[in-house]
C-alpha cells in the first residue's frame, strides 16, 4: 500500500439551500426512495391487505382516509412517489445522454420539481 496522501483542507457546505437544483433533486431522490421503502411501502401493503380483506376493513380505511390530516399525509407520500418517479425518468434520460449540458440539466431538475408538485396537486384535487 502506498503512503497516505497529505490531508487536504475540507470544507463541507451542508446547507441544502446552497445546492444547485440538480443536487437538491438528487438528495430528494434518495430521501424519497428511502422513505418509500420504509414506512410507505409496508403501510401501503397493510392498507391493501385490510381493504381487500373485508367490507368492514374497506369502510374503516375509507373513513380513515377521509380525515384531513390523513389526507395531507397521503399527499406527502404521493409527492415522494411523484418526485421519485419524475427524477427517475430524468436519470434514465441522462443515462442515454439526453440533456447532459449544465444548462439543460438545471432546467430539467427544476422541471422535475414542478412536475412532481403538479402531479401531487392533480391527484390531491381528484382525492378531495
Amino acid at each position, binding site marked *: 500500500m502506498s503512503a497516505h496522501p497529505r490531508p487536504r483542507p475540507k470544507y463541507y457546505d451542508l446547507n441544502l439551500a446552497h445546492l444547485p437544483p440538480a443536487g437538491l433533486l438528487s438528495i430528494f431522490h434518495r430521501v424519497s426512495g*428511502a422513505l418509500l421503502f420504509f414506512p410507505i411501502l*409496508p403501510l401501503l*401493503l397493510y392498507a391493501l391487505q385490510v*381493504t381487500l380483506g373485508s367490507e368492514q376493513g374497506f369502510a374503516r380505511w375509507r373513513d380513515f382516509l377521509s380525515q384531513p390530516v390523513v389526507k395531507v399525509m397521503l399527499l406527502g407520500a404521493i409527492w415522494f412517489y411523484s418526485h421519485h*418517479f419524475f427524477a427517475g425518468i430524468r436519470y434514465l434520460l441522462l443515462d442515454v445522454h439526453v440533456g447532459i449540458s449544465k444548462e439543460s440539466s438545471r432546467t430539467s431538475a427544476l422541471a422535475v420539481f414542478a412536475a412532481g408538485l403538479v402531479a401531487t396537486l392533480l391527484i390531491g384535487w*381528484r382525492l378531495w
Partner: protein
Amino acid sequence: MAAVVRRYTKNPVGAHYGLGDWLLQRLTAVVMLLYTLLLLACLLMEPPSTYAAWKALFSGAMFRLGTMLFVVALLYHAWVGMRDILMDYLRAASLRLVLEAAVGLALLFYLVWAASILWGPR
C-alpha cells in the same frame, strides 16, 4: 504451434455485480413506470368507490400478475437503492452489514406478504 499469451485484463477489485445491478435498477424502473401509468389509467377510468369494485379490480388474473411483477421490480430496485445509500453513508462494516441484512429480510417479508395479499384466502 505458437502459444497464445493472454494478458490478465480483469480489474482486480470489486465483486463485479455493480454494472448488472445498475442496469437492473434501470430495467425495474421502466417496469414500475409502465405499471404506474396503467394503474393510474385504471383508477381514473373507473374509480373503485365500493368494496365490490375494489375487489373486482384485484380479481383479474392479469392485474394480479402485473401487480406482482411491479412488486418484484420494486423490491429489487429498493434493494439496489438502499444498499447504495448504506454503502455511501455507513463506513463501519459491521453496522452496514447488519442494516443490509435487515433491509434484505424486510424485502423478503414484503415479497411474501404481497403474494399472500394477492393470492391468499380472502
